[in-house]
């Protein structure tokens, strides 16, 4: 079990790195202290990992995930908070730590093992297993300097894989080695998982995280963003990356199209700010409505959803509908670049428990509608018409525009519109109107 209790960690970044006696003395005599900045690598992380869980920390470089792993292993000490662990910890931050080229593979196994915290007796038991796993054979009795780099890597891996800790901390090390060997290691890790060992990994390999881990935790700039099932957390991570891409993309666009776009940017950023302000005020008012979802927006902004309008059958703009009524969702889109074949779509969502569930969604591609190509500056309206076969409730709309391959979102707006459905007829009950036909046949 691992308990991370409100842990923060800061680093000192020295402004001048010089460490010779002369300067130190001069500075000391002048009463000048070496200047440094403080950088909080982790801020108030509070996580409990139970025995037997497989947890992945994900996030960009510099998000603090490796620092966290080093705190768990005891290499770093937290500045605030506390870390409590139960059981033997084995850390695989780097492979082949302390390998000495002049020592034989055998000697290095024992040295490396003892560094990982295993005693001679345990290592003797594991020795044969390690040698077999590494597929190094008789080379094990030759100095490591005679090994190929692949062999040394395999040996390092094998030690890491064959030792038997209660808690295994792994930092990205699985990304190396050839594919067959990698598979072997993954299989081994599955074995660890089956044996109810606690595994904490730090990885960029999201596919592996999705497949292997039961739980993922996203860090951003030292803070915990979301902790949950890998699917949910990875989606959130993608969303964050996309936002970041948008920022850098905007910079690029600004660079390339200095005349038009900057004005647009300012405007849209302003608009966004305005919207956020409104949203914040709304939040204040609706404190009693804790489930009110936040308006969120990200994308590359090469095309922009300027407006989303909900209309009833009479073409009146409204946010209150009766079920069985027809409703149109109109997305007004402006293009900031020449684009080809974008996909426009929407979702209708509703709270179920504490989760926002997609009730219904569709897009132009699923509906087999080819949007064609657009020029910069062009504006279009995409209108979706449907009948609201929904029960009474509050619903949220998500509108999005993506590129033809759906590899990136130009604009993605969550909870852009809220609407209420009232059920005035009593023709049906439940979650959805299946529009049943009733047939009666008299038999006999």
């Amino acid at each position: 079990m691992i308990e991370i209790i409100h842990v923060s960690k800061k680093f000192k970044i020295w402004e001048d790195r010089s460490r010779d006696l002369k300067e130190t003395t001069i500075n000391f005599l002048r009463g000048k202290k070496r200047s440094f900045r403080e950088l909080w690598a982790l801020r108030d992380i509070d996580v409990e990992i139970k025995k037997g869980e497989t947890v992945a920390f994900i996030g960009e470089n510099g998000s603090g995930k490796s620092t966290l792993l080093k705190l768990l292993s005891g290499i770093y000490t937290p500045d605030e908070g506390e870390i409590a662990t139960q059981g033997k910890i084995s850390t695989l931050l780097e492979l082949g730590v302390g390998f000495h080229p002049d020592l034989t593979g055998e000697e290095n196994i024992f040295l490396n093992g003892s560094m990982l915290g295993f005693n001679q007796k345990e290592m003797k038991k594991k020795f044969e297993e390690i040698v077999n796993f590494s597929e190094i054979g008789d080379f094990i009795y030759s100095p490591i300097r005679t090994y190929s780099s692949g062999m040394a890597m395999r040996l390092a891996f094998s030690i890491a894989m064959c030792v038997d800790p209660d808690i295994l901390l792994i930092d990205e090390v699985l990304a190396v080695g050839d594919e067959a060997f990698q598979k072997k290691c993954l299989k081994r890790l599955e074995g660890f998982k089956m044996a109810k060992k606690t595994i904490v990994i730090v990885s960029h390999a999201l596919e592996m995280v999705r497949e292997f881990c039961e739980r993922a935790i996203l860090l951003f700039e030292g803070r915990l963003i979301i902790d949950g099932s890998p699917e949910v957390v990875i989606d959130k991570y993608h969303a964050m990356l996309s936002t970041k891409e948008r920022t850098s993309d905007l910079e690029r666009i600004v660079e390339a199209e200095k005349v038009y776009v900057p004005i647009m940017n300012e405007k849209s950023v302003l608009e966004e700010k305005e919207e956020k302000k409104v949203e914040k005020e709304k939040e204040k008012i609706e404190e009693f409505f804790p489930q009110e979802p936040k308006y969120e927006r990200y994308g590359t902004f090469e095309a922009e959803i300027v407006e989303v309008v909900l209309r009833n059958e009479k073409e009146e703009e409204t946010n209150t509908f009766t079920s069985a009524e027809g409703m149109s969702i109109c997305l007004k889109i402006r293009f900031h670049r020449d684009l080809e074949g974008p996909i426009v779509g929407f979702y209708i969502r509703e709270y179920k428990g504490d989760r926002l569930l997609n009730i219904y969604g569709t897009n132009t591609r699923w509906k087999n509608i080819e949007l064609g190509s657009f020029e910069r500056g062009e504006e279009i309206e995409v209108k979706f018409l449907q009948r609201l076969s929904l029960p009474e409730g509050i619903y949220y709309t998500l509108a999005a525009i993506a590129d033809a391959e759906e590899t990136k979102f130009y604009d993605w707006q969550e909870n852009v519109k809220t609407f209420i459905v009232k059920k005035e007829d009593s023709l049906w009950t439940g979650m959805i109107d299946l529009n049943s036909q009733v047939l009666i046949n008299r038999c006999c």
Partner: protein
Amino acid sequence: MKFIEIFNYGDLIKNLVSRDFKTRYKRSYLGILWSLLNPLLTIIVYTLAFDYILKIRVRNFPMFFMCAYLPWSYLSASLSTSLTSLSNSGYLIKAVYFPREILPLSIILSSLLHFLITFIFAFPILMIFGYFPQWSVLSLPGIILLQSLFIFGLCLFLSSIHVFFRDIQYILDVILTIWFWLTPVVYPISLIPDQFLFFYNLNPMTIFVTAYREVLLNGALPVPQYWIAILIATSASLLLGYFPFLKIRKRLAEEI
């Protein structure tokens, strides 16, 4: 609690010492023989210089010199090799946790091993020159243990300081030279004028070296005052070493 932790890492210490021991002379033709040849050649050179040329008035100079030079070189070798033990092990300190004092400790233990090997060869040479071991030899393990602790304290101090002040490396060379000549290794204490004798005896190495000579050459036990002085020096050195070490230990992985 942290001090006891080190005992859980006995195997790591053993492996590090054996790594250091095995790799020190690896790929050299004479290997471990250098541990013997080196002091032997030094003894010959100093004998030529001080006994034959400078004609220092000491009975049996080679043995007189050897009994002090071996413990001295144990100290100087430990200090100069363990100085970088923390700062050069950044890759280890950043990648895996273990009590950090193991790094200087394992280097000292490896030096101790070399010291003991040469020391064993010193006995037959002493006997050739007519010095036979007396009962007092049994106190040697005690002296060696205390000297090792004394050295460990200094090494902790120096290696901790070295993380922040790389200059200490160059200062150490000078200090070791001065220290060597302030210690009665090549000359007897009797040459020191009486008025300086008090300050001269404040040098812990003077005490250690004299203790070794008492045991090996005179077959006598060092007087109780010497033992007290040795104990004080050792505890002072450990305090001196642990003070900066404990200060930097927590941030070691970040600072290296």
